[in-house]
């Protein structure tokens, strides 16, 4: 293990330093940086596998010259799982980047970009491995800092700068909460080492524990992007280069999930009241629903994907929250089920979100725009990208037989299992959460029907789209690999579930792998196979068979005649892309139905012909949805703070006598106080 670890760290470090040293040939820098990153992530994958197979956790620790700080590393099942996820995506991203960054040759320093990229991977890895609070904080802050620098890669653009700053400040707010969390844990143990957190000398009083729970939820939730702390995410993730966006959206926000599990199940040993789980559940449900709703209204492809990260984090938290509720009622098998659902969705989301961001990156690479309204008809120009994007879309829309469907199905099952909970409130709340999840699922389906349909189908809407070219093979390979993983995780869950079960069992203590794999591993069942079961391979087979059947029927019913091609009927006119349904038009009914949430402001300007008011020369339609959280949550805080600061300015009025008076008063006060 040590060898793998050092190999990984070494190659990341090499990728961190070499590109800066080696000659300023962008091509070489590109290969060096991303090559070593690929090596490092391979090492990470190996390390993760070792950790998952290894019976007991492996630890290493290097004391530092600084009090309180030890560079301690621990590789248990949980860390290994997240390490594996990160490294997997990291590997794909490294391959993708080789092709992707060529667009920047001569514009920005590829060496710097690549070096930061390696640093990003390294810090993320260390976050999952750290076994000491202080070390964890350093890795955590470094992760944020490096990702900030990657976000502002194109810092000439004002909105990118804004996004970066917003991200940096928000994540620091989160870190403040995390620091407070660790400080409270420190009180019980007198040390920052995670072992001390696990086994404090004197157990923390309940008040403190509750505070820790909430602080951790806010602190890590900020990074995970749960509503209402998500506002930075749709700005920051799209602003970064696409392979970075894939990493940020796919895995960086998962480190927060990791940390939450670490705190709740590891440090607290799963000792918590039911309402903790309920809070997590509610946060998850709200994030999922609002995330997808805001995503629907986005026409910037990368922002749309970023909002879907909010949604999927919500789905993950639904699983984990359900698990926590079950655990607090002593239903450990179901608790494991919930956590498995969450973790499975974690890795699935990582894979298909990365795949989709790669796709978006390829579109950006080919068309130089992120606005969906300027795409169209790209499936003809970029068949490979289109096919991969379609697989990603089907997966994130949780349609069978892909991986997204499996994990979402598991989340549904763990929510349905609520009928075993004694409390009536939970009995009712979890199915309602399930209903919200169902709504989320359909809306996600709609959103990606929009994303794929508007971008890849029908006629090109701009000359960019008309003249787009398929992307380099490295990018295609990366996308292909992830598409394969999507299908594999969908069609062969029986291979993944035991591993994830091992992870969940290591936290909760009871393994349910054998109960989940029914019918000699063909079907998946939530603990009791009578209640429900799912077999994606069977479904896949039946789908294929019926499709074949359809072909056969068509054939035997004489449907063999050749096809004829002609233009789409457009009421007698020539069909142009202006007649097509736009992304905005597609979601218009949804916007109208849920207008209470969107609070849209619509602006319609019409310019009529001189001759008659019955004919419009041009029409301009635009709608904005109210940024509710900025308006009612963030702006007031910012306004208050800066107002306070402004009012404080008078303290520094510029008058010498005033200053002397301060000193005088202070002195007299202290003298009197001293008596």
């Amino acid at each position: 293990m040590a060898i793998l670890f050092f190999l990984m760290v070494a190659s990341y470090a090499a990728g961190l330093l070499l590109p800066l040293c080696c000659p300023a040939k962008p091509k070489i820098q590109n290969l060096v940086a991303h090559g070593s990153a690929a090596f490092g992530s391979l090492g990470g994958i190996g390390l993760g596998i070792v950790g998952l197979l290894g019976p007991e956790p492996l630890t290493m620790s290097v004391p530092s010259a600084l009090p309180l700080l030890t560079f301690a590393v621990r590789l248990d099942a949980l860390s290994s799982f997240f390490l594996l996820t990160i490294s997997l995506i990291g590997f794909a991203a490294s391959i993708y980047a080789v092709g992707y960054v060529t667009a920047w040759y001569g514009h920005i320093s590829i060496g710097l970009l690549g070096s930061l990229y390696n640093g990003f991977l390294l810090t993320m890895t260390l976050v999952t491995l750290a076994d000491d609070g202080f070390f964890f904080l350093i890795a955590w802050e470094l992760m944020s800092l490096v990702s900030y620098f990657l976000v502002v890669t194109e810092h000439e653009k004002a909105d990118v700068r804004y996004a970066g700053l917003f991200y940096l400040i928000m994540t620091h707010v989160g870190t403040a909460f995390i620091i407070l969390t660790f400080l409270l844990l420190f009180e019980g143990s007198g040390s920052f080492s995670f072992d001390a957190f696990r086994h404090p000398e004197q157990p923390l009083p309940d008040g403190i524990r509750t505070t820790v729970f909430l602080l951790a939820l806010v602190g890590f939730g900020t990074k995970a992007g749960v509503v209402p702390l998500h506002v930075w995410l749709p700005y920051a993730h799209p602003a970064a280069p696409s392979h970075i966006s894939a990493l940020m959206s796919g895995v960086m926000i998962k480190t927060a999930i990791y940390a939450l599990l670490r705190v709740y199940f590891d440090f607290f040993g799963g000792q918590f009241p039911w309402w903790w789980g309920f809070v997590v559940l509610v946060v998850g449900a709200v994030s999922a629903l609002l995330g997808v709703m805001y995503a629907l209204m986005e026409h910037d492809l990368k922002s749309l994907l970023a909002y879907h990260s909010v949604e999927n984090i919500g789905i993950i938290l639904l699983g984990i929250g359900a698990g926590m509720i079950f655990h607090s009622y002593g239903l450990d098998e179901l608790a494991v089920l919930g956590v498995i659902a969450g973790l499975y969705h974690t890795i699935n989301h990582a894979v298909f979100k990365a795949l989709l961001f790669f796709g978006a990156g390829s579109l950006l690479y080919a068309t130089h725009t992120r606005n969906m309204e300027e795409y169209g008809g790209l499936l003809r120009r970029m068949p490979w990208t289109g096919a991969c994007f379609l697989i990603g879309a089907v997966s994130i829309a949780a349609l069978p037989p892909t991986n997204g469907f499996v994990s979402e199905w598991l989340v549904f099952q763990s929510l349905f299992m609520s009928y075993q909970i004694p409390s009536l409130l939970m009995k009712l709340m979890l199915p309602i959460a399930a209903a919200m999840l169902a709504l989320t699922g359909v809306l996600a389906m709609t959103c990606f029907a929009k994303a794929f349909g508007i971008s890849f189908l029908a006629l090109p809407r701009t000359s960019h789209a008309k003249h787009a070219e398929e992307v380099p093979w490295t990018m295609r390979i990366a996308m292909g690999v992830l598409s394969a993983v999507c299908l594999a995780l969908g069609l062969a869950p029986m291979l993944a579930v035991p591993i994830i079960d091992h992870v969940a069992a290591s936290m909760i203590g009871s393994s349910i792998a054998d109960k989940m794999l029914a019918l000699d591993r063909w079907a998946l069942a939530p603990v009791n196979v009578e209640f429900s079961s799912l077999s994606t391979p069977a479904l896949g087979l039946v789908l294929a068979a019926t499709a074949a059947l359809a072909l056969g029927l068509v054939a035997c019913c004489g449907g063999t005649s050749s096809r004829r091609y002609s233009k789409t009927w457009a009421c007698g006119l020539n069909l142009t892309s202006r007649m097509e349904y736009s992304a905005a038009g597609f979601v218009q009914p949804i916007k109208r139905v849920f207008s209470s949430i969107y609070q849209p402001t619509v602006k319609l300007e019409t310019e009529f012909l001189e001759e008659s008011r019955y004919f419009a020369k041009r029409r301009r339609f635009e709608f904005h949805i109210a940024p509710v959280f900025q308006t009612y949550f963030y702006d007031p805080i910012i306004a208050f703070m800066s107002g306070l600061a402004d009012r404080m300015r008078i303290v520094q009025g510029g008058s010498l006598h005033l200053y002397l008076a301060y000193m005088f008063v202070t002195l007299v006060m202290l003298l009197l106080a001293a008596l």
Partner: protein
Amino acid sequence: MIPDQPIAQAVALILAQAVVLLCVSPAIVGLINKVKARLQCRRGAGILQPYADLQKLFRKQPVLSTTTTWIFTATPYIVFASTVTAGLLIPVFASQMPLNFAGNIIAFVYLLALGRFFLILAGLDSGSSFGGMGSSREAIVASLTEPAMIMAIFAIALTAGSTNLSTIVHRTALLEGIATDPSPHLMALAAVFIVALAETGRVPVDNPATHLELTMIHEAMVLEYSGRYLGLLEWASAIKLLVFLTLIANVFAPWGIATSFTPIALSIGLAVYLIKVAGLALLIGTIECMFAKLRLFRVTDLLGVAFILALLGLLFFYMLRG
């Protein structure tokens, strides 16, 4: 599922059920149209007319739009496949379907969603504004039906202690069915019925007969289709209708369904089944004559009602069970 079931028998059952679905579905559509015609004092076409239509469509040479991609041609097969697969998850005439293990109600709903997803894409692919309009309307209707659907079925699943459709039907059939806990079942039934109308694009949500731009939903999506592709889609939607009728019939009134595999039981089951779905078809036909199609943005109210009904069903279940 039945662990000790010979594989041959299983395959035979699956095929039989597939055949039933494929063959009966056009007749149901024909029946509904016939009923409507009668109620509108027309003679109307024969019940078997849809078979002739399908035959004709398969023969015709398909015309494809030049703007479309492979998605457009693949969609009919995918829709057909997903619908039939969904149909194979619910018991038709025998309560113990071998494919039961393959998926539960969630899988059922999401299989239909798979078909819908590609249908929406196809609607957009044609490039005409009608296709887009249909797709976007289909999306909103679907997004409102599915939560209600899942809640309703869950309310029933609680009685049977399972969400696998076949297990539900089997157990409710062995129990006294809907009489077990009437109130939740009735509410769930109402909810599922509304959902079924919406899902299958019937009045008052959608009108399969219309081709009026402003009102059509499903028809708008398939507007650019012709020939065998249109045939497949028509057939698939017929199957979908039948599947939903089967769902209602067998989940809420599983009486007479074959709970064992003796030929007698099976044949009785089949007969009862045909009567039940025919009855439901008559009901739908009548409804379609009595009600006008709702405005699109009134549909939300209807489906909201469905959701609340389902929720109440759940509540009642827990209340009565304590």
